[in-house]
């Protein structure tokens, strides 16, 4: 597959054997040239940063190999001093790999007359994931926000070490269920790169269809939460109904509401399709969802009480955007024109190019706009893919692929880079060179990166009443952070 090989050509930007600070400077210089950081990884006594050059469509790797790990750590500066913060939330994971590493960015202590603290969470809202917000409030204004996560770590990365690929599969698909197709797809791409497995065009097409259906469900759910955060239950109910409609479509076509376990190494595995598939009905349903969701969005865009709450709420400061480089709809709403589907096309995005939907204001309104436009794009693309779909040309030779995955890989590491509904998702897979068991798995989820932009966006001249709106406009998953 052409797109597979594209990412396989990794350009080694260099290995630094000297000071840690120099390596950080090199990383910073790389970023200044427009290279997007994909993944920060500590493995095999070295730190490496994987980057993506969107213009040259190639992946770079910048490695730092400390001369003697024990002595170097003590004198090292904290990474934030160089102004790199995209991987702030990846650092705890790295710190666990290398306990000697001084990754403690620390948070300023806020105190003073009239400052009140609202600890919110981990039990909060109606149905919400466990995370704790510590809001420092002065009058109505939130002046500082701290986030505390780690309540729900399931240690996915640790759990898969030492397993064969097929044994690791059930765990990977349960990293984040609302993006499970993309997690599986990224893992599958990584596996296929490591073992150099090719995927037939019809399987690729179907994988793209799954990915787009998942994006539709995710965006519809996020928009529903955003609508109700401004006190508008009617659009929330309408969005939820459309979400349920697509979930039922998933079930009828492919046998699972969240399309789980359909993507396997080497292709897709279908139990139901095509016996019970009714393409005309599915196309009509998608057309209904397209029509109704546009209708809801235009209704909301003509509702002043909705727009008043969104405009200017939760603007991500420019300095935070530069340091964190948020990804996905959150990033694109802040002027970061980066979409993996366009920058490094994978699966069928090679033949179905996507233009990133970009807004520049960086507020809740921009994030709403980006999601609404991406939803329309995804719905149109899903319809095109469904129309193009023909009978699978070849079945996955599951037994053969399985046998292959229990043998030595051809390349290591295998990288899987996809655009999940919430943004850039990268899997770095290091299989054992003889047995094929997983030696190390590095994962960079979009939520992990975007959560570090949330405190600054909230404590940016917003009042307490904006909190649910800002929270909903980010729509991040905690399981993606705490995996």
């Amino acid at each position, binding site marked *: 597959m052409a797109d597979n090989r594209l990412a396989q050509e990794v350009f080694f930007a260099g290995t630094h054997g000297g000071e840690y600070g120099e390596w950080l400077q090199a990383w910073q210089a790389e970023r200044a040239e427009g290279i997007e950081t994909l993944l920060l990884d500590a493995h095999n006594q070295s730190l490496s940063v994987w980057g993506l050059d969107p213009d040259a469509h190639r992946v770079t790797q910048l490695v730092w190999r400390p001369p003697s790990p024990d002595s170097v750590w003590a004198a090292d500066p904290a990474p934030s001093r160089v102004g790199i913060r995209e991987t702030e939330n990846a650092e705890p994971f790295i710190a666990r790999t290398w306990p000697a590493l001084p990754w403690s960015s620390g948070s300023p202590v806020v105190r003073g007359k009239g400052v009140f603290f609202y600890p919110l969470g981990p039990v909060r809202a109606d149905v919400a994931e466990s995370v704790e917000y510590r809001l420092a409030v002065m009058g109505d204004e939130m002046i500082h926000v701290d986030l505390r996560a780690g*309540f729900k770590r399931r240690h996915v990365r*640790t759990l898969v070490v030492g397993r064969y690929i097929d044994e690791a599969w059930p765990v990977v698909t349960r990293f984040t269920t609302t993006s499970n197709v993309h997690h599986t797809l990224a893992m599958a791409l990584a596996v296929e790169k490591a073992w150099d497995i090719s995927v037939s065009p019809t399987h690729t097409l179907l994988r793209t269809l799954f990915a787009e259906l998942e994006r539709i469900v995710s965006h519809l759910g996020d928009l529903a939460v955003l609508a109700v955060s401004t006190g508008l239950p009617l659009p929330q109910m309408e969005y939820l*109904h459309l979400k349920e409609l697509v979930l039922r479509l998933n079930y009828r076509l492919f046998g699972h509401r969240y399309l789980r376990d359909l993507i396997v190494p080497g292709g897709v595995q279908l139990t139901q399709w095509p016996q019970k598939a009714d393409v005309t009905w599915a196309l009509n349903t998608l057309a209904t969802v397209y029509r109704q969701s546009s209708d809801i969005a235009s209704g909301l865009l003509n509702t002043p009480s909705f727009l008043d709450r969104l405009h200017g709420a939760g603007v991500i400061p420019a300095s935070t955007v530069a340091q964190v480089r948020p990804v996905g709809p959150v990033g694109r709403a802040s002027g970061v024109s980066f979409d993996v589907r366009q920058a490094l096309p994978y699966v069928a995005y090679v033949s179905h190019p996507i233009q990133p939907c970009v807004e520049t204001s960086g507020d809740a309104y921009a994030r709403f706009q980006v999601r609404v436009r991406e939803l329309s794009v995804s719905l149109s693309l899903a319809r095109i893919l469904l129309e193009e779909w023909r009978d699978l040309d070849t079945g996955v030779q599951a037994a053969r692929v399985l046998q292959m995955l229990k043998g030595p890989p051809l390349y290591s590491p295998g990288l899987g880079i996809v655009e999940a509904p919430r943004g850039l998702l990268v899997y770095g897979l290091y299989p054992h060179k003889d047995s094929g068991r997983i030696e190390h798995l590095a994962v960079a989820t979009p939520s992990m990166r975007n959560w570090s932009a949330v405190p600054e966006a909230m404590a940016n001249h917003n009042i307490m009443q904006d909190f649910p709106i800002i929270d909903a406009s980010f729509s991040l998953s905690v399981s993606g952070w705490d995996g």
Partner: protein
Amino acid sequence: MYYWHWLRHIVRRPFTTGFPTEPDPTVARMADSGAVHTVTVPEGPFYRRSVALRHVDGGSCNGCESELGLLTSPDYDFSRYGFSFTPSPKHADILVVTGVVTEAMIPVIVATYEQMTAPKRVVALGTCAIDGWVFRDAPGVRGRLDSVIPVQVNIAGCPPTPADILRGLWAAIEGEPPPLPHRDGASHAEKQYELVKGESR
């Protein structure tokens, strides 16, 4: 303006079907007849008219949250049966716990349970909360809700569909879930399915 949507919904037939008290083959197809399992039949008086739920995420993959959130959607509308979500455990009658139950969440779950007033019921939602599912051996994962607080109803599934959750909540109050309509004869369900499919065209 959004008022037009409002007016349209007044004349339109509701999206809500009578499930689980009335047959809905589309929903019944997705549901799993063996999903709901009553561990201990709840005893004693329980106020059955308005039941407030408190949800606690004990380390889930957010699939159960997504399905639980859909109970408020017009397709399921659990408020028909008196259910509602409450932000405060002190107002809650049923505690719904999702996820693998991590060690970090155990004190939170216990505190939430203790803050609820009697009579109270506990529902373990999803296979993770019942036995840890694929995360059973992960470090820092307890994996069983019933080792932390007494559980009345287990709802299995990964994730359980909203229909199963609704039946499980029902079981938490009544002691047993309502039967799944149109599951006994597969051919009948197929016929119903074809019928519904035709309607939606």
